[in-house]
């Protein structure tokens, strides 16, 4: 488990990270979301040792991460780019060597990864000759080459077409399943819904949420969606019911107690048809909007 404890950082007197604490558990995909300028990239750079924290502690399985470099971390920075003029395989080997692999091992691993991404026949092409999506795959290959113990990816999905998004998702799941802590940031909230197991929300340098996705959903799951045969307006006057959204026969409500729910259901049935009475499973996107509001 990768853990950040009260990490702070300022730039020219402006506090960018304010006691940021969260965890990136093993065996799970951790999504890191926040608006532009919320502090995601700064946080990731501190995790990677590219920036120093002004305060706080960073630990991996309880041991402090002190060395300025993290040879066994896989990292994909937000701004993409490797060496545009160099053949793909050459730069992967080079990066693999810098991560401590022998040249031969680096070559084998690089070819394996390229094959997996369907790029085996492009190994000798210069990077700039590849499409953007394929360049991004090479970038991911660069991050995975040395079989990292921790994976930190800044916006790995940006600029990818739907097929590439699927491919990337399956790769990330794979790594998480191996027990590697995976932290990735994303703007595509709908994507998070199906992908992440753990969610960290940051706003203006402060962590607003740091919990398993299921937990966040349950916290928001006291809501029910109702669909009736006739106008649902009477729900507004029912005791123990808070109407969140109402349009014609459909309503999104929150009950004071489970008993309130059962009572309202019985009442609704006595008034006419009930076509839906269901626990509302909120999308993470909704949760995010709710939390940052």
């Amino acid at each position, binding site marked *: 488990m990768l853990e950040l404890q009260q990490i702070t950082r300022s730039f020219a007197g402006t506090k960018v990270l304010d006691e940021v604490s969260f965890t990136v558990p093993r065996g799970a995909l951790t999504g890191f979301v926040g608006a532009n300028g919320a502090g995601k990239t700064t946080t990731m750079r501190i995790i990677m040792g590219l920036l120093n924290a002004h305060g706080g502690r960073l630990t991996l399985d309880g041991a402090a991460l002190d060395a300025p470099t993290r*040879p066994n971390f896989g990292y994909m920075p937000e701004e993409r*780019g490797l*060496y545009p003029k160099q053949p793909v395989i050459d730069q992967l080997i080079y990066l693999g060597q*810098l991560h*401590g692999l022998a040249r031969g091992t680096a070559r084998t691993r690089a070819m394996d990864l390229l094959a997996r991404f369907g790029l085996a026949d492009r190994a000798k092409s210069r990077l700039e000759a590849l499409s953007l999506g394929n360049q991004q795959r090479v970038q991911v290959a660069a991050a995975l080459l040395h*079989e990292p113990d921790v994976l930190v990816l800044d916006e790995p999905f940006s600029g990818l077409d739907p097929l590439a998004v699927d491919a990337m998702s399956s790769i990330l799941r794979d790594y998480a399943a191996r027990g590697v802590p995976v932290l990735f940031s994303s703007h595509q909230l709908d994507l998070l819904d199906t992908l992440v197991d753990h969610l960290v929300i940051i706003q203006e340098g402060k962590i607003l949420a740091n919990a398993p996705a299921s937990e966040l959903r349950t916290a928001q799951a006291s809501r029910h969606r109702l669909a009736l045969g006739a106008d649902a307006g009477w729900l507004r006057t029912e005791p123990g019911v808070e109407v969140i959204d109402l349009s014609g026969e459909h309503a999104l409500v929150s009950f004071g107690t489970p008993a309130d729910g059962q009572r309202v259901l019985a009442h609704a049935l006595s008034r006419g048809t009930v076509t839906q009475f269901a626990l509302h499973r909120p999308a993470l996107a909704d949760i995010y909007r709710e939390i940052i509001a």
Partner: protein
Amino acid sequence: MNTLATPAWLIVTLREVETKLRDKAFIISTLVTLLLIIGSIAVTGFLATRTTQFSVAATDQASLTVLNQAASDAEDQLKINVEQLPADDATAQLDVGELDATLSQGPANKFTLTGSDEVPDKLHGALREATEKVLTARLLTSAGLNADQLPGDGALTVTQMHGDAERASMIKAMAFLFSFLFYMSALIFGMPIANSVIEEKQNRVVEILAGAINLRQLLAGKILGNVILALAQLLLFLSVGLFAAYLSPVQIPFLGVVSQVAGWFVAFFLVGFLVLAGIWATLGALASRTEDLQQSSGPVVGVLMAVLFIGIYAKDGFLVIASYVPIVSSVAMPIRLLGGEVSLVEPLISLALTLATCWFTILFAERIYRRAVMHTGGALTLRKALKLEL
């Protein structure tokens, strides 16, 4: 997997060297320079040993005297074949090209040199001198004097207290060569240090690299790679040049001294280049795009031009001062050493001074590099870069 089999700086160094060696433009320019060096030595040798021959006929006795005088006075690379022919025969042979020229005496001690369609300058010059000599001698004899008593070329001999004229011209030539080699290498191998720093900064590869290895090692590898390349190329040029000079049929004077000083030059080149490498790395880190370098490299290119001109033109006191100023000393001290009158202590002190400068420059470059290379958005000034926090 975690233990680095090869140190990171070495991997970076090897990559720099490998990339350059695969660069066709670099290989071609090196080969062309080599050919130029060999070619210019070969041409000099050829020109120096080539003998020019002229066949000239005299149509009368006076002309024959002049021609014989010219033939005996002619310098080593000029040979004049003299014969005496009747005017008609001479004209006929000149016409068919068996003769290069004919000489005949006209009225009032005037001679006429006739060529077929041109008279070679060399021949013209030789005969003009001979004519003057013969006529003067004749005049003196008629006045009862001996030509040897006249003041002549020998009246003023030139000697130098330090060295001699030949040595001075050798120093001039070598000064130009050293200055030019340094200038060229500093640009050819210095600029790529800055460019490769910018490339990694611009593409943000540096973030991936910095996550894996220490930036200090990255910088060290980059500088070392280019130093190795620059030094290897310089050694290649110098050794091929010296070897070609050694094989050349012409006795090239001072080859021993030149070889010795070439060794000093290599040492001075190395430390001077290291100072520059630090400066180039700093410039690269401050820039945000390749275009920024064009502006910021101005002062460095200016310094290099100054080195070139100081190397070629500086003399005496100025040269002595220059031989202690780092970077400039890389050229100035070897030039002084060519004179052979510098004690061993001087180059050692100068070398130590440059080494100290080198140490500070590289440390400073590393300081700037570590701060500025992660910076995104516009080019930085030195002051701003120093204020950046890691």
